[in-house]
Structures are given as structure tokens and as C-alpha cells.
């Protein structure tokens, strides 16, 4: 039994410190400002500098805990398990059987780069907690990472060759390192640029700015600012508009840069039974998704990109991911015409036909009628309170109706063998390809009004990480909905 215990690289301590510091930075800043700026000298030096002293002590404490955490962390292989021992005050042990390990995901941050290190996340089949992953090795050398991979591969193939000599070890490492790897999809720099410029990350940044500001709201001297701003407004609305616009451009620029960095060098390759996705410029990420864990394949077309003939492909994986599901961008941006080739290569059994089943015309009303429930009171209130101009709110009616009709026209579905294809639109058009043996349950919903018009909604539920992805074909022909249920009922095992 080789029970050599391995440690993480010492850089772990620094990463740990930075991580803690990042989490604690806001409270610390608040503390320093609140304390350091208000007091006007009480005569005792240690009271004047209290906040700085606390600050200093905290930093030192972070360092010490970081170092202890690093010193305490050990991992080794025993009895076909990856065993980890860690903990600051309480010593914790975690044993993960190799059979349960689904994949190892690698991340190379800026700090990892100079030392040729990687962060390894161990993903297991069904981690019951909503924590991110079963185990995380913050920084180990690449050789150590491939040693883990090799141990797992060995245990899984059932071979239990005892390896003592290093030569054999390196030989096998090399053998493991160059398996049949086949690149399937690479994003061109043009594609990357389009992805970055049309990304929806803008909203995230806005909300980020919002959160950031709300944290500081108490510290911003609003009264002073109002005076300044009222002077500012006298400068003319033009300047205000320009500033706002520049602000938008700046935010957008940041979002473009962030997407660019995150998706730089995006590559998907096939390695035996796994899909391997690598991406990132500053922080290189490598993610492995076992093919048999893929629950669904979805083509997502956002309207703007659809206009230019681009789409994205995402998959849902049963393992990994948080509580919000494990949607993985397989092809973040791809010409629609180029989807089918690489997708076919990854999923040969997938039938990529255009779904032909359409919705009956009598179901149209259901796409917008329900919206009148909020539109009528809203329009009424607008008209009542802002009499002449409030009437303009009536303009929302045709918009909603047209949007509903658009949704109605977009929906499609089709069955080919054991595969169900569902296409529907929220704002983006989604086409989900679902295999029967991946559908966890199916539901037919029908309201009183549906029944009168003989239509029904079909919803299918798919496992995605720890949660559920639900695909719906709304307001379809009742008989067809029935047929979908019967299709699902028959031989669910296959």
C-alpha cells in the first residue's frame, strides 16, 4: 500500500489569505472609515489608531490561519479512495471512493501560472449538499494532478498494479496524458469578439455596480453631491447625457473585456468518454463532463444573435453545478450552420432534425390573454393618475400581443425514436433535445379554458446539477399532448 501523504503547494497559504481577505474587505473598510474618520483624537494613541490596529491584527490572523490551513491539509490514496484530511481547529477527514468521482476540473489562476500549478475540483455523482464540489485541492503541481488522474483511471479499469518505481510511474503518466484526444470545437477570435460584444454580461455588471454602491451608500455624502449635481445640471443636459452614455460605454467595455478573458482560447475536445472544455486567458479552466452524465442538449438563440445567424449550445450535466443547476456552455457562440457537424461528433446518437409539430391556431390567445390580467389594471392606473399621457400606456397592448404571437409561432416539437425535441421561446429561442431515458418526469397541464379549446401544456423535467431544468411546450393540441405522454409511458427504460 503506497500511503505517501501529499501536501499542497505552499502557494495555497497565500491564496487562502487572499480569499479570506477578499471576503472580509468590505467590513474592514467600513470599520476603518467609520472608526478612523469620526474620532478627533481622544488623547490615547491606541484609541486613535484602534481601527488600524484591528486591521493589522486581522491581516496577521489571516496569514496565520492561512498557513495553518495549508500545513494541515493532506491527501493520499488508500483502498481505492482519495482521502483528505484538513481543518483549522477541528480535524476533518473526507474519503471519496474513486468509483464515485465523476471528473476532475482544473483551474489555473494567475498565482498558479508561474509555478505550473493547478487547482483541482473533485466532482462526484451526487453530492447531497449544495456545496460547490466534494473536494478542492487549492494548488498542486500538474504532475501531482495527473498522478491523481492516473490513480483514478487505474482503479476504474480494475487494474491494481502496484507501482513503486518512479520510472514506471512517469511512463504511465505519459500514457495517461496523451489519450485519444480529439478537438471538436474551437472558437475563432472573430467568434470570441462577437460573443464578447453581444454578451448579456452587461446586466450582471450593472447589478454588481448597484450592489457595490449600496454597500457604500451610507458613506457617500449625498447632500454635498446634490449641490454639486444641481450645479452640474445647469451645465446643460447635453453634458449629463454624454456622461451617462460614457458610463454605459465603460460598463459595456468592462463586460466585453471580462467575457473575452473568460472565453479566450475556448476549446471543446473529446477524450474517450469525456467532454473536456478548456478556456480562459488569465485564469485557465479545464472542465470535464463525462458523456454519460449529459442529460440534455439545448440550442439557444438569443434574438440579436439569431438575426446574424448565430446560436449557442448548452448541455445539462447531472453531476456538479450548484443549486441553480449545471448548465454548461458547450459552444458559447457558433454559426448556426456549423452546429450540426461538431455536435454530431460529440453525440452521435443525437437526431438533429427540425421539429415539425406546430401549435394549433386556436391556442394563440393563451399566449397573451393572461397578460391582460396585469395590463388592464396597470393601464387603468396610468391613465387615471397621469391623465393625458397615461393613455400612451395603451401602446403596450399591441407589443404584448405581438410578442405572444411570436412565441406561438416559435414553438415546435417532434419525436424521433427515443428522442423528444422541444422548441420554445421566452425571449431567446431554445431547442432542447431530450432522450427518453433522461426525462425524470413528464406533466400535462390543462386549465378550464384549455379544456374548452382542447389544448394542453406539456412539461418535461430533466436533472441539471442538483436542481431541475424544465422544458415546456405550451398550449399544444390536446391529442398530441396525450401522445407525448403515451410515448413517454412506453418503455421508459430504453
Amino acid at each position, binding site marked *: 500500500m503506497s500511503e505517501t501523504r501529499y501536501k499542497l503547494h505552499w502557494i495555497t497559504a497565500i491564496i487562502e489569505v487572499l480569499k479570506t481577505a477578499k471576503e472580509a474587505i468590505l467590513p474592514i473598510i467600513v470599520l476603518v472609515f467609520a472608526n478612523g474618520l469620526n474620532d478627533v483624537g481622544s488623547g490615547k494613541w491606541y484609541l486613535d489608531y484602534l481601527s488600524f490596529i484591528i486591521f493589522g491584527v486581522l491581516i496577521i490572523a489571516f496569514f496565520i490561519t492561512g498557513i495553518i490551513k495549508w500545513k494541515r491539509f493532506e491527501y493520499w490514496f488508500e483502498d481505492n479512495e482519495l482521502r483528505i484530511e484538513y481543518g483549522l481547529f477541528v480535524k476533518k477527514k473526507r474519503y471519496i471512493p474513486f468509483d464515485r468521482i465523476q471528473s476532475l476540473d482544473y483551474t489555473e489562476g494567475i498565482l498558479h501560472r508561474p509555478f505550473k500549478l493547478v487547482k483541482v475540483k473533485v466532482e462526484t455523482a451526487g453530492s447531497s449538499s449544495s456545496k460547490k464540489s466534494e473536494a478542492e485541492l487549492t494548488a498542486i503541481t500538474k504532475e501531482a494532478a495527473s498522478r491523481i488522474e492516473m490513480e483514478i483511471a487505474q482503479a476504474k479499469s480494475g487494474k491494481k498494479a502496484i507501482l513503486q518505481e518512479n520510472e514506471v510511474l512517469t511512463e504511465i503518466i505519459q500514457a495517461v496524458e496523451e489519450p485519444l484526444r480529439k478537438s471538436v470545437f474551437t472558437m475563432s477570435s472573430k467568434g470570441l469578439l462577437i460573443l464578447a460584444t453581444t454578451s448579456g454580461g452587461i446586466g450582471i455588471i450593472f447589478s454588481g455596480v448597484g450592489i457595490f454602491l449600496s454597500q457604500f451608500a451610507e458613506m457617500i455624502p449625498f447632500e454635498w453631491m446634490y449641490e454639486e449635481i444641481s450645479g452640474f445640471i445647469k451645465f446643460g443636459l447635453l453634458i449629463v447625457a454624454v456622461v451617462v452614455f460614457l458610463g454605459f460605454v465603460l460598463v459595456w467595455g468592462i463586460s466585453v473585456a471580462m467575457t473575452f478573458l473568460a472565453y479566450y482560447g475556448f476549446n471543446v475536445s473529446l477524450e474517450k468518454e469525456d467532454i473536456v472544455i478548456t478556456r480562459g486567458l488569465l485564469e485557465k479552466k479545464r472542465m470535464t463532463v463525462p458523456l454519460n452524465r449529459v442529460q440534455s442538449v439545448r440550442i439557444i438563440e438569443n434574438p440579436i444573435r439569431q438575426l446574424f445567424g448565430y446560436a449557442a449550445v448548452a448541455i445539462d450535466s447531472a453531476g456538479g453545478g450548484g443549486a441553480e443547476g449545471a448548465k454548461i456552455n458547450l459552444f458559447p457562440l457558433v454559426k448556426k450552420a456549423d452546429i450540426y457537424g461538431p455536435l454530431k461528433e460529440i453525440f452521435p446518437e443525437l437526431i438533429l432534425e427540425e421539429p415539425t409539430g406546430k401549435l394549433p391556431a386556436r391556442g394563440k390567445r393563451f399566449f397573451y390573454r393572461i397578460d391582460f390580467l396585469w395590463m388592464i389594471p396597470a393601464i387603468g392606473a396610468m391613465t387615471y393618475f397621469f391623465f393625458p399621457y397615461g393613455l400612451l400606456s395603451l401602446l403596450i397592448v399591441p407589443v404584448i400581443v405581438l410578442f405572444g404571437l411570436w412565441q406561438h409561432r416559435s414553438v415546435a416539437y417532434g419525436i424521433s425514436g427515443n428522442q423528444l425535441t422541444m422548441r420554445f421561446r421566452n425571449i431567446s429561442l431554445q431547442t432542447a433535445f431530450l432522450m427518453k431515458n433522461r426525462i425524470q418526469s413528464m406533466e*400535462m397541464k390543462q386549465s378550464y379554458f384549455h379544456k374548452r379549446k382542447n389544448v394542453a401544456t406539456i412539461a418535461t423535467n430533466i436533472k441539471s446539477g442538483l436542481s431541475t431544468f424544465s422544458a415546456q411546450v405550451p398550449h399544444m393540441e390536446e391529442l398530441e399532448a396525450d401522445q407525448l405522454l403515451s410515448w413517454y409511458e412506453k418503455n421508459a427504460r430504453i
Partner: protein
Amino acid sequence: MREQPVNQISEKGLKVWRLYGIIETGFLLLGAIGAGVLSYIFEGPWWIYAVTPVLVIIFAYFFIYLFPKLRWMRWRYEVRESEIELQHGIFIVKRTLIPMVRVQHVDTAQGPILRKYNLAEITISTAATNHTIPALVMEEADELRSRISALARVAEEDV
């Protein structure tokens, strides 16, 4: 057209739902009395005395009489060899199909009120979804649980 699932839930379930309705109405009544007292003390508008009782009565009608009845009439389930079928919903009728092969585990649960009526609810979990059949007679729920778990075991399969 598909047949409705055959089994109905226990008639005592209806009683329990009525009881829930009575409890909820009780809380609303307390709120209404509170509003009345406040409006008396602070000389609020007179119509509060008129509106609150009407609200309580309407609420009581819906949540003690109508909804439990509709809900009970609608609720149906059927456990067949290879799938479980459920039907429920007052306004929107939902019919759910769960293949046995997808069932991961089955739970029964019993709160204090359900225990008083010797009832239990049974929850069927798949890898992605949970489905609950409310208000089954205890013995029936236990029997159903072991039957489902036996049937599901036959159809063992990875996710």
C-alpha cells in the same frame, strides 16, 4: 383520451383540508378583529366594519368549503407496474407521469393533524423532482411506499 387514474385519496383528507381552512380562517378572523379594534380606537372609516366580515366570510367559503372539495375531487393517483400517474390541481389540472425506473426514493411523512386522523402523505422523489400524494390512510401509505420501493428496485438504473 387518457383514462383518469383510478385511486382517490382518503375521504378523511377532505376533513383535514377543511380543518386547515378553518385554521387559516381563524388567523384571518384575528386580523379582521385587530383591524376593527384599531379602526375603533383611531376612529377609522366606517366601511372597515362592513368590509372585513364580508372578506372573512368569502375567504371561509372558498377555503373551508369550495377549494378543499374541488381539490379532493380532482386528486387521483395510480401506481402501476412501470409507472406512477398523478392528477391534481384546482384551476390547472396537472397530470404527472413518473416511470418506476426514475424513482429514487419514497418517503412517508405525518404531521400532528394528519396523525390525529391516522393519515400520512407520501413523497416520491426522482433525481430531479419530488411528487407528493397528500392524505392517504396510514396503512395504505405504508403499503404503497413498500410497493413503490419494491417496484423501483426491480428497475434499478443509473441516472
